[in-house]
Protein backbone atom coordinates (compact mmCIF):
# COMPACT_ATOMS: atom_id res chain seq x y z
CA UNK A 1 0.00 0.00 0.00
CA UNK A 2 2.97 2.32 0.54
CA UNK A 3 3.78 2.36 -3.15
CA UNK A 4 0.18 3.25 -3.97
CA UNK A 5 0.33 6.20 -1.60
CA UNK A 6 3.60 7.41 -3.09
CA UNK A 7 2.14 7.06 -6.55
CA UNK A 8 -0.96 9.07 -5.60
CA UNK A 9 1.16 11.82 -4.06
CA UNK A 10 3.53 12.17 -7.03
CA UNK A 11 0.73 11.98 -9.55
CA UNK A 12 -1.27 14.65 -7.70
CA UNK A 13 1.77 16.90 -7.42
CA UNK A 14 2.41 16.55 -11.14
CA UNK A 15 -1.05 17.93 -11.83
CA UNK A 16 -0.06 21.31 -10.41
CA UNK A 17 2.57 22.22 -13.02
CA UNK A 18 0.25 20.96 -15.77
CA UNK A 19 -2.53 23.26 -14.60
CA UNK A 20 -0.12 26.18 -14.21
CA UNK A 21 1.23 25.68 -17.73
CA UNK A 22 -2.24 25.40 -19.23
CA UNK A 23 -3.41 28.53 -17.43
CA UNK A 24 -0.29 30.37 -18.60
CA UNK A 25 -0.99 29.31 -22.17
CA UNK A 26 -4.57 30.57 -21.88
CA UNK A 27 -3.28 33.86 -20.46
CA UNK A 28 -0.76 34.16 -23.29
CA UNK A 29 -3.44 33.50 -25.89
CA UNK A 30 -5.84 36.04 -24.44
CA UNK A 31 -3.39 38.85 -23.60
CA UNK A 32 -0.26 38.51 -25.68
CA UNK A 33 -1.44 37.30 -29.08
CA UNK A 34 -2.07 40.10 -31.56
CA UNK A 35 -5.67 41.29 -31.53
CA UNK A 36 -6.96 44.22 -29.50
CA UNK A 37 -9.97 43.11 -27.46
CA UNK A 38 -10.91 46.66 -26.52
CA UNK A 39 -11.47 47.93 -30.06
CA UNK A 40 -12.92 44.56 -31.01
CA UNK A 41 -15.59 45.03 -28.34
CA UNK A 42 -16.51 48.70 -28.54
CA UNK A 43 -15.32 49.58 -32.05
CA UNK A 44 -12.87 52.18 -33.31
CA UNK A 45 -15.05 55.22 -32.73
CA UNK A 46 -16.00 54.62 -29.10
CA UNK A 47 -15.76 57.58 -26.70
CA UNK A 48 -12.60 57.55 -24.54
CA UNK A 49 -14.59 57.18 -21.29
CA UNK A 50 -16.15 53.98 -22.55
CA UNK A 51 -12.74 52.63 -23.54
CA UNK A 52 -11.32 53.51 -20.09
CA UNK A 53 -14.27 51.78 -18.41
CA UNK A 54 -13.80 48.63 -20.46
CA UNK A 55 -10.05 48.55 -19.88
CA UNK A 56 -10.76 48.70 -16.17
CA UNK A 57 -13.21 45.80 -16.43
CA UNK A 58 -10.66 43.76 -18.37
CA UNK A 59 -8.05 44.45 -15.69
CA UNK A 60 -5.76 46.29 -18.09
CA UNK A 61 -5.65 49.60 -16.12
CA UNK A 62 -6.17 50.48 -12.45
CA UNK A 63 -8.66 52.93 -10.90
CA UNK A 64 -6.49 55.92 -11.72
CA UNK A 65 -6.21 55.02 -15.38
CA UNK A 66 -2.63 53.83 -15.13
CA UNK A 67 -1.79 50.72 -17.20
CA UNK A 68 -1.14 47.60 -15.13
CA UNK A 69 2.11 45.83 -16.13
CA UNK A 70 1.70 42.42 -17.74
CA UNK A 71 3.27 40.44 -14.90
CA UNK A 72 0.89 42.03 -12.35
CA UNK A 73 -2.01 41.18 -14.68
CA UNK A 74 -0.70 37.63 -14.73
CA UNK A 75 -0.50 37.46 -10.93
CA UNK A 76 -3.99 38.94 -10.57
CA UNK A 77 -5.29 36.38 -13.02
CA UNK A 78 -3.76 33.53 -11.04
CA UNK A 79 -4.83 34.72 -7.62
CA UNK A 80 -8.35 35.20 -8.99
CA UNK A 81 -8.53 31.64 -10.28
CA UNK A 82 -7.19 30.22 -7.01
CA UNK A 83 -9.96 32.05 -5.17
CA UNK A 84 -12.50 30.67 -7.63
CA UNK A 85 -12.99 34.10 -9.20
CA UNK A 86 -13.03 33.75 -12.99
CA UNK A 87 -13.90 37.41 -13.54
CA UNK A 88 -17.20 39.00 -14.47
CA UNK A 89 -18.98 38.77 -17.79
CA UNK A 90 -18.81 41.89 -19.95
CA UNK A 91 -22.42 41.66 -21.09
CA UNK A 92 -25.95 41.08 -19.80
CA UNK A 93 -25.92 41.94 -16.13
CA UNK A 94 -22.16 41.31 -15.78
CA UNK A 95 -22.60 38.18 -13.69
CA UNK A 96 -19.64 36.19 -12.34
CA UNK A 97 -18.33 33.92 -15.08
CA UNK A 98 -18.04 30.86 -12.85
CA UNK A 99 -21.76 30.97 -11.99
CA UNK A 100 -22.73 31.13 -15.65
CA UNK A 101 -20.39 28.24 -16.45
CA UNK A 102 -21.83 26.10 -13.68
CA UNK A 103 -25.33 26.80 -14.96
CA UNK A 104 -24.47 25.42 -18.38
CA UNK A 105 -22.24 22.57 -17.27
CA UNK A 106 -24.92 19.98 -16.30
CA UNK A 107 -26.34 20.05 -19.84
CA UNK A 108 -22.89 19.19 -21.23
CA UNK A 109 -22.39 16.46 -18.62
CA UNK A 110 -25.75 14.89 -19.44
CA UNK A 111 -25.03 14.88 -23.17
CA UNK A 112 -21.49 13.57 -22.66
CA UNK A 113 -22.60 10.71 -20.40
CA UNK A 114 -25.29 9.60 -22.83
CA UNK A 115 -22.95 9.94 -25.80
CA UNK A 116 -20.33 7.93 -23.96
CA UNK A 117 -22.81 5.15 -23.15
CA UNK A 118 -23.92 4.97 -26.78
CA UNK A 119 -20.33 4.81 -28.02
CA UNK A 120 -19.40 2.14 -25.51
CA UNK A 121 -22.41 0.00 -26.46
CA UNK A 122 -21.71 0.27 -30.19
CA UNK A 123 -17.99 -0.29 -29.63
CA UNK A 124 -18.32 -3.35 -27.40
CA UNK A 125 -20.97 -5.09 -29.48
CA UNK A 126 -19.31 -4.47 -32.84
CA UNK A 127 -15.84 -5.23 -31.48
CA UNK A 128 -16.82 -8.54 -29.91
CA UNK A 129 -18.77 -9.56 -33.00
CA UNK A 130 -15.90 -8.61 -35.28
CA UNK A 131 -13.41 -10.68 -33.27
CA UNK A 132 -15.86 -13.58 -33.16
CA UNK A 133 -16.25 -13.53 -36.96
CA UNK A 134 -12.54 -12.95 -37.49
CA UNK A 135 -11.50 -12.52 -41.11
CA UNK A 136 -15.05 -12.69 -42.47
CA UNK A 137 -16.57 -9.93 -44.57
CA UNK A 138 -18.46 -8.71 -41.47
CA UNK A 139 -15.11 -8.40 -39.73
CA UNK A 140 -13.67 -6.29 -42.56
CA UNK A 141 -16.78 -4.12 -42.63
CA UNK A 142 -16.57 -3.48 -38.91
CA UNK A 143 -12.86 -2.76 -39.15
CA UNK A 144 -13.50 -0.19 -41.87
CA UNK A 145 -16.26 1.25 -39.68
CA UNK A 146 -13.69 1.57 -36.90
CA UNK A 147 -11.58 3.85 -39.08
CA UNK A 148 -14.38 5.72 -40.84
CA UNK A 149 -16.53 6.50 -37.81
CA UNK A 150 -13.88 8.85 -36.48
CA UNK A 151 -13.90 10.80 -39.73
CA UNK A 152 -17.67 11.28 -39.65
CA UNK A 153 -17.88 15.01 -39.10
CA UNK A 154 -20.23 15.54 -36.15
CA UNK A 155 -22.19 18.52 -37.52
CA UNK A 156 -22.79 16.66 -40.76
CA UNK A 157 -24.03 13.44 -39.17
CA UNK A 158 -26.08 15.51 -36.73
CA UNK A 159 -27.72 17.53 -39.46
CA UNK A 160 -28.50 14.46 -41.55
CA UNK A 161 -30.22 12.96 -38.49
CA UNK A 162 -32.08 16.20 -37.91
CA UNK A 163 -33.20 16.25 -41.51
CA UNK A 164 -34.32 12.64 -41.57
CA UNK A 165 -35.85 12.12 -38.12
CA UNK A 166 -36.87 15.70 -37.43
CA UNK A 167 -37.85 17.30 -40.70
CA UNK A 168 -38.89 14.31 -42.84
CA UNK A 169 -40.36 11.88 -40.32
CA UNK A 170 -41.13 14.50 -37.65
CA UNK A 171 -40.69 11.97 -34.84
CA UNK A 172 -37.85 13.56 -32.85
CA UNK A 173 -37.09 17.15 -31.86
CA UNK A 174 -34.05 18.72 -33.54
CA UNK A 175 -33.07 21.39 -31.03
CA UNK A 176 -32.96 22.16 -27.33
CA UNK A 177 -32.93 20.03 -24.18
CA UNK A 178 -36.60 19.77 -23.31
CA UNK A 179 -39.96 21.14 -24.46
CA UNK A 180 -40.51 24.68 -23.14
CA UNK A 181 -42.16 24.76 -19.71
CA UNK A 182 -41.44 21.08 -19.01
CA UNK A 183 -38.22 21.57 -17.03
CA UNK A 184 -38.12 19.39 -13.91
CA UNK A 185 -37.28 20.82 -10.52
CA UNK A 186 -33.54 21.54 -10.43
CA UNK A 187 -31.62 19.20 -8.16
CA UNK A 188 -28.58 17.95 -10.04
CA UNK A 189 -29.21 19.91 -13.22
CA UNK A 190 -29.30 16.64 -15.19
CA UNK A 191 -32.86 16.65 -16.51
CA UNK A 192 -33.15 12.87 -16.81
CA UNK A 193 -31.99 12.31 -13.25
CA UNK A 194 -34.01 15.19 -11.82
CA UNK A 195 -37.22 14.01 -13.43
CA UNK A 196 -36.67 10.50 -12.08
CA UNK A 197 -36.05 11.83 -8.56
CA UNK A 198 -39.19 13.95 -8.65
CA UNK A 199 -41.16 11.23 -10.53
CA UNK A 200 -41.96 13.79 -13.21
CA UNK A 201 -42.51 11.37 -16.11
CA UNK A 202 -43.68 13.83 -18.78
CA UNK A 203 -40.41 15.75 -18.26
CA UNK A 204 -38.45 12.52 -18.39
CA UNK A 205 -39.92 11.53 -21.73
CA UNK A 206 -39.49 14.99 -23.17
CA UNK A 207 -35.83 15.27 -22.17
CA UNK A 208 -35.11 11.71 -23.30
CA UNK A 209 -36.59 12.50 -26.72
CA UNK A 210 -34.38 15.55 -26.99
CA UNK A 211 -31.32 13.54 -25.99
CA UNK A 212 -31.68 10.74 -28.53
CA UNK A 213 -30.33 12.41 -31.67
CA UNK A 214 -27.46 14.37 -30.05
CA UNK A 215 -26.23 11.43 -28.01
CA UNK A 216 -26.37 9.02 -30.95
CA UNK A 217 -24.46 11.55 -33.07
CA UNK A 218 -21.78 11.95 -30.43
CA UNK A 219 -21.79 8.22 -29.70
CA UNK A 220 -21.26 7.10 -33.29
CA UNK A 221 -18.27 9.35 -33.82
CA UNK A 222 -16.57 8.20 -30.62
CA UNK A 223 -17.48 4.53 -31.03
CA UNK A 224 -14.81 3.67 -33.61
CA UNK A 225 -11.98 3.72 -31.13
CA UNK A 226 -13.86 1.33 -28.81
CA UNK A 227 -14.68 -0.95 -31.72
CA UNK A 228 -11.01 -1.22 -32.66
CA UNK A 229 -9.86 -1.59 -29.11
CA UNK A 230 -12.43 -4.23 -28.21
CA UNK A 231 -11.66 -6.17 -31.38
CA UNK A 232 -7.93 -6.09 -30.73
CA UNK A 233 -8.21 -7.05 -27.06
CA UNK A 234 -10.72 -9.80 -27.83
CA UNK A 235 -8.53 -11.31 -30.55
CA UNK A 236 -5.65 -11.42 -28.14
CA UNK A 237 -7.68 -13.07 -25.38
CA UNK A 238 -9.43 -15.47 -27.77
CA UNK A 239 -6.08 -16.93 -28.82
CA UNK A 240 -5.14 -17.83 -25.25
CA UNK A 241 -5.13 -21.32 -23.83
CA UNK A 242 -8.00 -20.98 -21.41
CA UNK A 243 -10.34 -20.03 -24.24
CA UNK A 244 -9.21 -22.99 -26.30
CA UNK A 245 -9.78 -25.17 -23.24
CA UNK A 246 -13.26 -23.71 -22.82
CA UNK A 247 -14.02 -24.44 -26.48
CA UNK A 248 -12.72 -27.99 -26.10
CA UNK A 249 -15.04 -28.49 -23.17
CA UNK A 250 -17.90 -27.48 -25.44
CA UNK A 251 -18.94 -24.26 -23.79
CA UNK A 252 -21.51 -22.33 -25.83
CA UNK A 253 -20.11 -19.46 -27.91
CA UNK A 254 -21.98 -16.78 -26.02
CA UNK A 255 -20.41 -17.87 -22.74
CA UNK A 256 -16.93 -18.01 -24.24
CA UNK A 257 -17.27 -14.52 -25.63
CA UNK A 258 -18.49 -13.11 -22.31
CA UNK A 259 -15.65 -14.86 -20.58
CA UNK A 260 -13.15 -13.37 -23.01
CA UNK A 261 -14.69 -9.90 -22.80
CA UNK A 262 -14.19 -9.86 -19.05
CA UNK A 263 -10.49 -10.43 -19.59
CA UNK A 264 -10.27 -7.98 -22.45
CA UNK A 265 -11.78 -5.23 -20.38
CA UNK A 266 -8.69 -3.69 -18.75
CA UNK A 267 -7.18 -2.26 -21.96
CA UNK A 268 -10.63 -0.99 -22.93
CA UNK A 269 -10.98 0.65 -19.54
CA UNK A 270 -7.59 2.32 -19.91
CA UNK A 271 -8.68 3.88 -23.16
CA UNK A 272 -11.95 5.21 -21.71
CA UNK A 273 -10.21 7.85 -19.63
CA UNK A 274 -8.17 9.04 -22.58
CA UNK A 275 -11.40 9.60 -24.45
CA UNK A 276 -12.48 12.39 -22.14
CA UNK A 277 -10.82 15.21 -24.10
CA UNK A 278 -12.30 13.86 -27.32
CA UNK A 279 -15.67 13.64 -25.63
CA UNK A 280 -15.56 17.32 -24.67
CA UNK A 281 -14.52 18.40 -28.17
CA UNK A 282 -17.27 16.27 -29.64
CA UNK A 283 -19.76 17.71 -27.18
CA UNK A 284 -18.96 21.26 -28.33
CA UNK A 285 -19.71 20.40 -31.96
CA UNK A 286 -22.78 18.35 -31.05
CA UNK A 287 -24.12 21.15 -28.89
CA UNK A 288 -23.74 23.76 -31.61
CA UNK A 289 -25.39 21.46 -34.13
CA UNK A 290 -28.38 20.69 -31.91
CA UNK A 291 -28.62 24.09 -30.14
CA UNK A 292 -28.04 22.14 -26.92
CA UNK A 293 -27.75 24.72 -24.12
CA UNK A 294 -24.47 23.39 -22.72
CA UNK A 295 -21.08 24.91 -22.19
CA UNK A 296 -20.07 24.61 -25.86
CA UNK A 297 -23.04 26.60 -27.13
CA UNK A 298 -22.41 29.06 -24.31
CA UNK A 299 -18.75 29.47 -25.30
CA UNK A 300 -19.57 30.05 -28.97
CA UNK A 301 -22.30 32.53 -28.11
CA UNK A 302 -19.94 34.55 -25.92
CA UNK A 303 -17.21 34.50 -28.56
CA UNK A 304 -19.72 36.07 -30.95
CA UNK A 305 -20.50 38.78 -28.40
CA UNK A 306 -16.77 39.30 -27.77
CA UNK A 307 -17.30 38.67 -24.07
CA UNK A 308 -13.58 38.08 -23.50
CA UNK A 309 -13.60 37.50 -19.76
CA UNK A 310 -16.23 34.78 -20.15
CA UNK A 311 -14.34 33.16 -23.03
CA UNK A 312 -11.14 33.18 -20.97
CA UNK A 313 -12.96 31.83 -17.92
CA UNK A 314 -14.57 29.01 -19.88
CA UNK A 315 -11.28 27.89 -21.42
CA UNK A 316 -9.65 28.01 -17.96
CA UNK A 317 -12.52 25.92 -16.65
CA UNK A 318 -11.94 23.33 -19.39
CA UNK A 319 -8.22 23.25 -18.58
CA UNK A 320 -8.82 22.60 -14.88
CA UNK A 321 -11.53 20.00 -15.46
CA UNK A 322 -9.38 18.09 -17.93
CA UNK A 323 -6.35 18.03 -15.64
CA UNK A 324 -8.46 16.84 -12.73
CA UNK A 325 -10.21 14.15 -14.74
CA UNK A 326 -6.92 12.79 -16.02
CA UNK A 327 -5.63 12.75 -12.45
CA UNK A 328 -8.68 10.83 -11.22
CA UNK A 329 -8.52 8.39 -14.12
CA UNK A 330 -4.83 7.67 -13.47
CA UNK A 331 -5.49 7.07 -9.80
CA UNK A 332 -8.31 4.67 -10.56
CA UNK A 333 -6.02 2.66 -12.86
CA UNK A 334 -3.29 2.56 -10.28
CA UNK A 335 -5.84 1.15 -7.88
CA UNK A 336 -7.13 -1.45 -10.35
CA UNK A 337 -3.86 -2.44 -11.95
CA UNK A 338 -0.93 -2.78 -9.53
CA UNK A 339 1.63 -2.85 -12.38
CA UNK A 340 1.14 0.90 -12.97
CA UNK A 341 2.39 1.80 -9.52
CA UNK A 342 5.87 0.47 -10.04
Amino acid at each position, binding site marked *: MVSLRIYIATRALLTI*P*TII*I*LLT*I*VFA*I*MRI*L*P*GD*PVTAIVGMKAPPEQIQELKKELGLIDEFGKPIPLYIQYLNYFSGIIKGDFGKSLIWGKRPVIIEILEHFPATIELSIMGFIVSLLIGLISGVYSAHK*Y*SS*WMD*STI*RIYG*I*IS*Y*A*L*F*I*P*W*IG*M*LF*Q*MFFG*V*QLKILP*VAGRIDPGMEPQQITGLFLLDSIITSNWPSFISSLKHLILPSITLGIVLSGIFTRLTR*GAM*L*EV*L*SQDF*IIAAKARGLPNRKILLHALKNAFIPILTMMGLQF*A*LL*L*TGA*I*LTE*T*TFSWPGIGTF*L*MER*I*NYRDYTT*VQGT*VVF*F*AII*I*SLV*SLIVDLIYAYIDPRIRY
Partner: protein
Amino acid sequence: MEIINFFNKLLRKIVPHGSGAKLVIIGFSIVILIIFIAIFAPFLTSYSPTKSVGLSLQPPSLKHLMGTNRLGYDMFSRIVYGARTILIVVILSTIISLSIGLPLGLLSGYYGGIIDRILSIIMDSIYAFPGLILAIAVAAVIGPGVINTALAIAIVYVPTYYRMARGQTFSIREQLYIEAMKAIGAKDRTIMIKHILPNLLPTMTIVFSLSVADTILTEASLSFLGLGVTAPTPDWGYDLRAGKEFLPAGYWWLITFPGLFIILLTIGFSFIGEGLNEILNPRMKVRP
Protein backbone atom coordinates in the same frame (compact mmCIF):
# COMPACT_ATOMS: atom_id res chain seq x y z
CA MET B 1 -22.13 -8.27 -52.00
CA GLU B 2 -21.19 -9.03 -55.60
CA ILE B 3 -19.65 -5.60 -55.93
CA ILE B 4 -17.66 -5.95 -52.70
CA ASN B 5 -16.35 -9.32 -53.81
CA PHE B 6 -15.45 -7.97 -57.21
CA PHE B 7 -13.45 -5.12 -55.71
CA ASN B 8 -11.83 -7.49 -53.29
CA LYS B 9 -10.64 -9.70 -56.13
CA LEU B 10 -9.50 -6.69 -58.14
CA LEU B 11 -7.53 -5.34 -55.21
CA ARG B 12 -6.01 -8.70 -54.45
CA LYS B 13 -4.67 -8.77 -57.99
CA ILE B 14 -3.09 -5.33 -57.66
CA VAL B 15 -1.76 -5.86 -54.16
CA PRO B 16 -0.91 -9.48 -53.47
CA HIS B 17 -1.19 -9.40 -49.70
CA GLY B 18 -2.08 -7.35 -46.71
CA SER B 19 -5.06 -5.21 -45.92
CA GLY B 20 -2.64 -2.41 -45.06
CA ALA B 21 -1.60 -1.97 -48.67
CA LYS B 22 -5.26 -1.92 -49.72
CA LEU B 23 -6.03 0.85 -47.28
CA VAL B 24 -3.07 2.88 -48.46
CA ILE B 25 -4.11 2.51 -52.10
CA ILE B 26 -7.73 3.49 -51.47
CA GLY B 27 -6.60 6.38 -49.29
CA PHE B 28 -4.13 7.63 -51.87
CA SER B 29 -6.75 7.47 -54.62
CA ILE B 30 -9.14 9.61 -52.58
CA VAL B 31 -6.50 12.16 -51.65
CA ILE B 32 -5.12 12.39 -55.18
CA LEU B 33 -8.63 12.79 -56.57
CA ILE B 34 -9.29 15.74 -54.27
CA ILE B 35 -5.89 17.32 -54.99
CA PHE B 36 -6.70 16.91 -58.69
CA ILE B 37 -10.07 18.63 -58.15
CA ALA B 38 -8.33 21.48 -56.35
CA ILE B 39 -5.66 21.99 -59.01
CA PHE B 40 -7.95 21.75 -62.02
CA ALA B 41 -10.88 23.60 -60.44
CA PRO B 42 -11.27 26.11 -63.32
CA PHE B 43 -11.53 23.28 -65.84
CA LEU B 44 -14.16 21.39 -63.88
CA THR B 45 -16.66 24.18 -63.57
CA SER B 46 -17.41 27.27 -65.59
CA TYR B 47 -19.22 29.02 -62.74
CA SER B 48 -17.49 31.33 -60.29
CA PRO B 49 -17.83 30.10 -56.68
CA THR B 50 -18.41 33.64 -55.40
CA LYS B 51 -20.92 35.00 -57.90
CA SER B 52 -24.64 34.56 -58.27
CA VAL B 53 -25.14 32.41 -61.33
CA GLY B 54 -28.78 31.40 -61.09
CA LEU B 55 -31.91 31.39 -58.98
CA SER B 56 -31.31 30.92 -55.28
CA LEU B 57 -31.88 27.63 -53.45
CA GLN B 58 -32.40 25.46 -56.52
CA PRO B 59 -32.15 21.67 -56.02
CA PRO B 60 -29.49 19.77 -57.97
CA SER B 61 -30.09 19.68 -61.70
CA LEU B 62 -28.05 19.19 -64.84
CA LYS B 63 -27.30 22.89 -64.93
CA HIS B 64 -26.26 23.01 -61.27
CA LEU B 65 -25.01 19.56 -60.28
CA MET B 66 -25.21 20.25 -56.54
CA GLY B 67 -27.88 22.94 -56.61
CA THR B 68 -27.52 26.58 -55.63
CA ASN B 69 -27.37 28.30 -52.25
CA ARG B 70 -29.22 31.26 -50.75
CA LEU B 71 -27.34 33.79 -52.88
CA GLY B 72 -27.67 31.77 -56.07
CA TYR B 73 -24.05 30.57 -56.01
CA ASP B 74 -23.41 27.27 -57.71
CA MET B 75 -22.72 24.70 -54.99
CA PHE B 76 -20.69 22.43 -57.26
CA SER B 77 -18.16 25.14 -58.00
CA ARG B 78 -18.05 26.07 -54.31
CA ILE B 79 -17.20 22.46 -53.51
CA VAL B 80 -14.57 22.33 -56.24
CA TYR B 81 -12.91 25.59 -55.20
CA GLY B 82 -13.46 24.73 -51.53
CA ALA B 83 -10.99 21.88 -51.99
CA ARG B 84 -8.34 24.54 -52.59
CA THR B 85 -9.18 26.41 -49.40
CA ILE B 86 -9.09 23.41 -47.10
CA LEU B 87 -5.93 22.01 -48.68
CA ILE B 88 -4.15 25.36 -48.40
CA VAL B 89 -5.08 25.75 -44.74
CA VAL B 90 -4.10 22.16 -43.96
CA ILE B 91 -0.77 22.37 -45.83
CA LEU B 92 0.12 25.72 -44.24
CA SER B 93 -0.70 24.62 -40.71
CA THR B 94 1.10 21.30 -41.13
CA ILE B 95 4.23 23.06 -42.39
CA ILE B 96 4.14 25.42 -39.41
CA SER B 97 3.63 22.75 -36.76
CA LEU B 98 6.11 20.39 -38.39
CA SER B 99 8.82 23.03 -38.62
CA ILE B 100 8.43 23.89 -34.95
CA GLY B 101 7.70 20.46 -33.49
CA LEU B 102 10.22 18.37 -35.38
CA PRO B 103 13.44 20.36 -34.66
CA LEU B 104 12.45 20.90 -31.04
CA GLY B 105 11.73 17.20 -30.61
CA LEU B 106 15.00 16.24 -32.27
CA LEU B 107 17.07 18.55 -30.06
CA SER B 108 15.12 17.55 -26.97
CA GLY B 109 15.53 13.85 -27.60
CA TYR B 110 19.18 14.11 -28.60
CA TYR B 111 20.52 16.27 -25.80
CA GLY B 112 18.05 15.42 -23.02
CA GLY B 113 18.66 17.25 -19.75
CA ILE B 114 16.79 20.11 -18.19
CA ILE B 115 15.65 21.73 -21.48
CA ASP B 116 14.15 18.41 -22.51
CA ARG B 117 12.33 18.15 -19.20
CA ILE B 118 10.83 21.62 -19.47
CA LEU B 119 9.89 21.32 -23.15
CA SER B 120 8.33 17.93 -22.56
CA ILE B 121 6.16 19.08 -19.72
CA ILE B 122 4.94 22.07 -21.75
CA MET B 123 4.24 19.99 -24.84
CA ASP B 124 2.51 17.27 -22.83
CA SER B 125 0.26 19.87 -21.23
CA ILE B 126 -0.77 21.25 -24.62
CA TYR B 127 -1.16 17.74 -25.96
CA ALA B 128 -3.54 16.80 -23.15
CA PHE B 129 -5.71 19.80 -23.84
CA PRO B 130 -8.51 19.19 -26.37
CA GLY B 131 -7.19 20.50 -29.69
CA LEU B 132 -10.39 22.03 -30.90
CA ILE B 133 -10.86 24.10 -27.73
CA LEU B 134 -7.30 25.41 -28.00
CA ALA B 135 -7.83 26.27 -31.67
CA ILE B 136 -11.15 27.96 -30.81
CA ALA B 137 -9.46 30.12 -28.17
CA VAL B 138 -6.64 31.17 -30.50
CA ALA B 139 -8.97 31.75 -33.45
CA ALA B 140 -11.35 33.80 -31.29
CA VAL B 141 -8.50 36.15 -30.40
CA ILE B 142 -6.62 36.47 -33.71
CA GLY B 143 -9.71 36.50 -35.88
CA PRO B 144 -10.82 34.64 -39.02
CA GLY B 145 -9.08 34.26 -42.38
CA VAL B 146 -6.99 31.64 -44.15
CA ILE B 147 -3.63 32.45 -42.54
CA ASN B 148 -5.08 32.96 -39.07
CA THR B 149 -6.98 29.68 -39.24
CA ALA B 150 -3.79 27.89 -40.27
CA LEU B 151 -1.97 29.46 -37.31
CA ALA B 152 -4.70 28.52 -34.84
CA ILE B 153 -4.62 24.93 -36.05
CA ALA B 154 -0.81 24.78 -36.19
CA ILE B 155 -0.48 25.45 -32.45
CA VAL B 156 -2.57 22.38 -31.73
CA TYR B 157 -0.35 19.96 -33.64
CA VAL B 158 3.12 21.16 -32.59
CA PRO B 159 3.16 18.72 -29.62
CA THR B 160 2.14 15.80 -31.86
CA TYR B 161 5.26 16.19 -34.03
CA TYR B 162 7.43 17.11 -31.06
CA ARG B 163 6.51 13.97 -29.12
CA MET B 164 7.03 11.73 -32.13
CA ALA B 165 10.44 13.22 -32.99
CA ARG B 166 11.61 13.21 -29.38
CA GLY B 167 10.57 9.63 -28.68
CA GLN B 168 12.16 8.29 -31.85
CA THR B 169 15.38 10.27 -31.41
CA PHE B 170 15.59 9.02 -27.88
CA SER B 171 15.71 5.39 -28.95
CA ILE B 172 17.82 5.92 -32.08
CA ARG B 173 20.42 7.83 -30.04
CA GLU B 174 21.18 4.69 -28.05
CA GLN B 175 22.03 2.60 -31.09
CA LEU B 176 25.49 1.36 -31.81
CA TYR B 177 26.04 3.17 -35.11
CA ILE B 178 25.36 6.53 -33.48
CA GLU B 179 27.90 5.68 -30.82
CA ALA B 180 30.32 4.76 -33.59
CA MET B 181 29.70 8.09 -35.31
CA LYS B 182 30.47 9.88 -32.10
CA ALA B 183 33.61 7.83 -31.58
CA ILE B 184 35.02 8.88 -34.93
CA GLY B 185 34.29 12.48 -33.98
CA ALA B 186 31.22 13.37 -36.04
CA LYS B 187 29.55 16.64 -35.10
CA ASP B 188 26.25 16.51 -33.26
CA ARG B 189 24.61 18.45 -36.07
CA THR B 190 25.78 15.96 -38.69
CA ILE B 191 24.57 13.03 -36.63
CA MET B 192 21.16 14.60 -36.11
CA ILE B 193 20.57 15.70 -39.69
CA LYS B 194 22.25 12.89 -41.61
CA HIS B 195 21.70 9.91 -39.37
CA ILE B 196 18.74 10.46 -37.11
CA LEU B 197 16.40 12.56 -39.24
CA PRO B 198 16.11 9.99 -42.08
CA ASN B 199 15.26 7.33 -39.52
CA LEU B 200 12.35 9.41 -38.28
CA LEU B 201 10.70 9.28 -41.69
CA PRO B 202 8.69 6.03 -41.46
CA THR B 203 7.05 6.91 -38.16
CA MET B 204 6.66 10.49 -39.25
CA THR B 205 4.69 9.45 -42.34
CA ILE B 206 2.18 7.62 -40.18
CA VAL B 207 1.88 10.43 -37.65
CA PHE B 208 1.68 12.90 -40.51
CA SER B 209 -1.22 11.20 -42.31
CA LEU B 210 -3.17 10.64 -39.11
CA SER B 211 -2.71 14.18 -37.88
CA VAL B 212 -3.54 15.63 -41.28
CA ALA B 213 -6.82 13.73 -41.07
CA ASP B 214 -7.35 15.36 -37.71
CA THR B 215 -6.31 18.78 -39.04
CA ILE B 216 -8.97 18.58 -41.73
CA LEU B 217 -11.65 17.95 -39.12
CA THR B 218 -10.34 20.83 -37.00
CA GLU B 219 -10.36 23.20 -39.98
CA ALA B 220 -13.89 22.17 -40.88
CA SER B 221 -14.98 22.54 -37.24
CA LEU B 222 -13.53 26.03 -36.92
CA SER B 223 -15.24 27.15 -40.12
CA PHE B 224 -18.47 25.47 -39.05
CA LEU B 225 -18.34 27.35 -35.75
CA GLY B 226 -17.79 30.60 -37.65
CA LEU B 227 -14.19 31.07 -36.51
CA GLY B 228 -12.33 29.85 -39.56
CA VAL B 229 -12.44 30.88 -43.16
CA THR B 230 -15.44 33.13 -43.75
CA ALA B 231 -17.59 34.35 -46.64
CA PRO B 232 -17.26 34.69 -49.52
CA THR B 233 -14.27 32.31 -49.71
CA PRO B 234 -15.57 28.88 -50.72
CA ASP B 235 -15.00 26.55 -47.78
CA TRP B 236 -16.70 23.25 -46.97
CA GLY B 237 -17.07 23.89 -43.25
CA TYR B 238 -18.42 27.36 -43.83
CA ASP B 239 -20.92 26.12 -46.40
CA LEU B 240 -22.12 23.52 -43.94
CA ARG B 241 -22.72 26.28 -41.42
CA ALA B 242 -24.56 28.37 -44.00
CA GLY B 243 -26.74 25.40 -44.94
CA LYS B 244 -27.83 24.76 -41.34
CA GLU B 245 -30.29 27.66 -41.55
CA PHE B 246 -32.21 25.93 -44.36
CA LEU B 247 -32.39 22.55 -42.71
CA PRO B 248 -35.99 22.94 -41.47
CA ALA B 249 -37.02 23.72 -45.05
CA GLY B 250 -35.47 20.42 -46.16
CA TYR B 251 -32.85 21.83 -48.57
CA TRP B 252 -30.67 18.76 -48.25
CA TRP B 253 -28.14 19.61 -50.95
CA LEU B 254 -26.78 22.57 -49.02
CA ILE B 255 -25.39 20.36 -46.26
CA THR B 256 -25.03 16.91 -47.82
CA PHE B 257 -22.28 17.75 -50.31
CA PRO B 258 -19.94 19.93 -48.22
CA GLY B 259 -20.04 17.40 -45.38
CA LEU B 260 -19.49 14.48 -47.73
CA PHE B 261 -16.29 16.02 -49.04
CA ILE B 262 -14.97 16.86 -45.56
CA ILE B 263 -15.45 13.22 -44.61
CA LEU B 264 -14.03 11.89 -47.86
CA LEU B 265 -10.79 13.85 -47.49
CA THR B 266 -10.47 12.85 -43.82
CA ILE B 267 -11.04 9.20 -44.66
CA GLY B 268 -8.42 9.42 -47.41
CA PHE B 269 -5.71 10.49 -44.99
CA SER B 270 -6.90 8.12 -42.22
CA PHE B 271 -6.69 5.17 -44.61
CA ILE B 272 -3.16 6.11 -45.64
CA GLY B 273 -2.11 6.45 -41.99
CA GLU B 274 -3.80 3.27 -40.81
CA GLY B 275 -2.55 1.28 -43.78
CA LEU B 276 1.04 2.44 -43.34
CA ASN B 277 0.77 1.69 -39.66
CA GLU B 278 -0.27 -1.85 -40.46
CA ILE B 279 2.53 -2.31 -42.98
CA LEU B 280 5.32 -0.73 -40.94
CA ASN B 281 4.35 -1.90 -37.45
CA PRO B 282 2.74 -5.28 -37.87
CA ARG B 283 1.67 -6.27 -34.39
CA MET B 284 -1.00 -8.89 -34.42
CA LYS B 285 0.09 -11.71 -36.62
CA VAL B 286 -1.09 -14.58 -34.43
CA ARG B 287 -4.62 -15.69 -35.13
CA PRO B 288 -6.92 -17.79 -33.02
